[in-house]
């Protein structure tokens, strides 16, 4: 992985709300095809960090570069056009459209046909939409109203939407929150496979340590807005500071990990 070119480079990212330093001087990078987890206790600044990466929030200081290009402070839609897909902690989809139409809207945008007024959207790149839905495993629900999907399938749909613009980087905010344990593993395996095949860099936040330690190539640990550790899953697991602050001394993960019980 280390030979892959740097995809995302974050330098000295800083943001405060009033007097509270949500994120302070955070720097890291993500390479193409690499899966990086951003973890830390509640209030550590994970979401703020995330929101600054795709332009949802503007940093007070610091730079965000995508393939060398400075994208700091650009609006989300501009960041998306540069190849950054995003999924949300609480899914954001279009509930009055069918599952397929949800993807088709993203394809319309990717093809720059937003202001086309005469074509039929339900027929727009139907094949590509179905391919993406198949890829994430909800191909059978294409005609369903999106509002009827189970939560796990909505998460998959979000992934399909995020993949519609052939992204170089995927930002996934708690991709498995609110899912059943088995669905979590499946979704992350799927994500890892797609990332590997298409050489997409993935940065995700997650509270489920099973998911994190099983799928992340590298882990960043955030606490009170600063990066306190960074490294391979093994390094991070052994890091005394991380144990003290976040993983705790109960070592549930270690115990389960030794038994080989994934979930």
């Amino acid at each position, binding site marked *: 992985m280390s030979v892959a070119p740097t995809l995302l480079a974050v330098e000295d990212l800083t943001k405060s709300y009033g007097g509270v330093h949500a994120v302070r001087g955070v720097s890291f990078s993500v390479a193409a095809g690499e899966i990086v987890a951003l973890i830390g206790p509640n209030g550590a600044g994970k979401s703020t960090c995330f929101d600054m990466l*795709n332009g949802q929030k503007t940093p007070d200081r610091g730079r965000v570069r995508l393939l060398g290009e400075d994208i700091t402070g650009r*609006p*989300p*839609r501009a960041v*998306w*056009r540069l190849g950054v897909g*995003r999924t*949300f902690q609480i899914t*954001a*989809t*279009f*509930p*009055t*459209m*069918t599952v397929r*139409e949800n993807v*088709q*809207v*993203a394809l*319309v*945008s*990717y093809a720059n*046909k*937003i*202001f*086309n*007024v*005469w*074509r*039929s*959207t*339900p027929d*727009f790149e139907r094949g590509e939409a179905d391919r993406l839905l198949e890829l994430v495993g909800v191909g059978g629900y294409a*005609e*369903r*109203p999106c*509002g*009827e999907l189970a939560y796990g399938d909505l998460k998959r749909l979000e992934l399909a*939407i995020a993949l*519609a*613009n052939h992204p170089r980087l995927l930002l996934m905010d708690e991709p498995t929150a609110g899912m059943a344990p088995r669905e979590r593993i499946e979704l992350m395996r799927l994500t890892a496979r797609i990332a590997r095949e298409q050489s997409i860099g993935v940065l995700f936040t997650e509270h489920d340590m099973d998911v994190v330690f099983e799928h992340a190539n590298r882990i960043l640990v955030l606490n009170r807005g600063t990066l306190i550790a960074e490294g391979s899953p093994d390094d991070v697991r052994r890091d005394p500071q991380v144990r003290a602050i976040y993983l705790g001394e109960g070592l549930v993960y270690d115990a389960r990990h030794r038994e080989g019980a994934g979930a």
Partner: protein
Amino acid sequence: MSFYIVQFLTGLASAASLFLVASGLSIIFGVTRIVNFAHGAFYMLGAYVAFTLTERLSGTLGFWGGIVGAALIVALIGVIVEMVLLRRIYRSPELFQLLATFGLTLMVEDLVVLIWGPDDLLGRRAPGLRGAIDFFGQAVPTYDILLIVLGPVVLGLLWLLFRRTRWGVLVRAATQDRDMVAALGVNQKWLFTSVFALGVFLAALGGALQIPRDAVNHTMDLRIIVDVFVVVVIGGLGSITGAFVAAVLVSELNAFGILIFPKISIILVFLVMAVVLVVRPWGLFGKPEAAARQTPGLSVRPWRPLSSNERLAFIGALIIAAALPLLGSNYALIVGAEIAIFVIFAASLHFLMSVGGLASFGHAAYFGLGTYGVAFLAKFLGLPMIVCLLIGPLLGLLGAMLFGWFAVQLSGVYFAMLTLAFAQIVWSIAFQWVEVTGGDNGILGVWPAAFVATPARFYWLALFVTALSVIVLRVLVFSPFGYSLRATRDSALRSEAIGLNSKRIQWTAFVIAGTFAGIAGALFAYLKGSVFPDNAGIALSVDSLVMVLLGGVETVSGAVIGAIVYKALSIWLVSYTELSKLVLGGMIVLIVVAFPKGIAGTFGNLVDSGRLPFFKRALPRASQAEGAE
């Protein structure tokens, strides 16, 4: 110099009533999240009841007792309204709440005429305050001084009420998180009722205090509500201090605008509002609203293009409609043409409202601009009808471009209030700029060309343009642009995250809707042969909303059905009853409370339940389209 100071004092005096009404609106909104369109009606009721009471009661005590008594009586009416109507719709989508309170306003307008008659009533002057104070050689009415003092006093009292009483603490808590307040065991029902009563009391007091200054009449509700909307948009909805500052600002702008630019005083206020909106969209003292929650009641039944059976049904209906001249009288043809024109108008609003989620309460502005566009071209330039019909609607387009740019910066109730204010500005210009628009007398003699001069031919023209417009709008709904627009309505967050520029998309939709409204207006001008300010009036804006709502706001073709049913019904009503507003208002309230899905929505439900097999589709259960398309 002293003249300007006196003018300043007059402005301050006018601000008092405006502040009372606006603060009442803000307080009610803060807790119940309802923008009470009926607030102007309560203001008007306050004035009427105070008029009656002060006529009956004598002496200083009688006068002031009458003023306060009137406010209390109207507050009591408010309590009844809250308990009977509003409690049923607290969980409804914003649009329905706005419409229900608007329906109430219409009802009150007719009731007031029924009880007090249509003529202006001149109230008693305040005893002991009839005179004027000499101010450097200029006279300032004593009563104005009282009002100037009253504004800050009420502001102070409200501050004390909200900061120093238990009730006030509960209200402030509910403003921040009403669910949490309910979870803490506070009786929310009575908290809401008492807040509504206070808000209505303030509005009615504002009205009652106006009677020594101004004649009481049955149009004062709409006049004040537009000013109040401007005040709360500038000051920030939910902020009482903001209401005070903005009321003073708006009143002073009016007072000095009349002196400096007598013709465009209303535009001055608009300019200030525009600047505020660009700099602080949530108002000077307001707070940015948290991300809008998903509109409850949003349909999960996806829209579908017409099936072949439905296409046949549409063509069949069109053929039957085209055959009307063979059967109907001239009167029926004129009514038919009018209905057709309103189908375009309703369909254009539907595009903005149902597809874009932008409920405009001032859509008549662009209809009206279309009528004037045609009238200017035909009367001043003498252009032939075809040219006028093609170019006239462009005035609607231009208006929509200008106003729409500001309007789409906002959403929800702010959007509704702003569009209403814009429409009122168009109406005021048409009304005041007598040299160009003819003012209240309108522009007469806009006659159609010879080739469509007979009722049958004009009807066919209207039907043709209508069919074309409806088809074009439908194609738009299913086009990439239509889907992008729906995407911005469904989820702003997701739209931005897939590269959609929401504001630009919504602005484009606003312009499209305005243009089609302009087309409807252009035809309307030729149908009537004349053009009046009321073509951009509030009543017409409400008509369009009701048509969309009656047809079913969550459907693709509800607007067409709603327009036909509503227009036919209202033409019939007007010829049979004097109290059309009362009936209409009652109807709106009834739809909102009992029939929120509208005609097409209900029809669609019937299709889904399998009771109308002709419209059934061979699709998986869950994705059956609405049948009414």
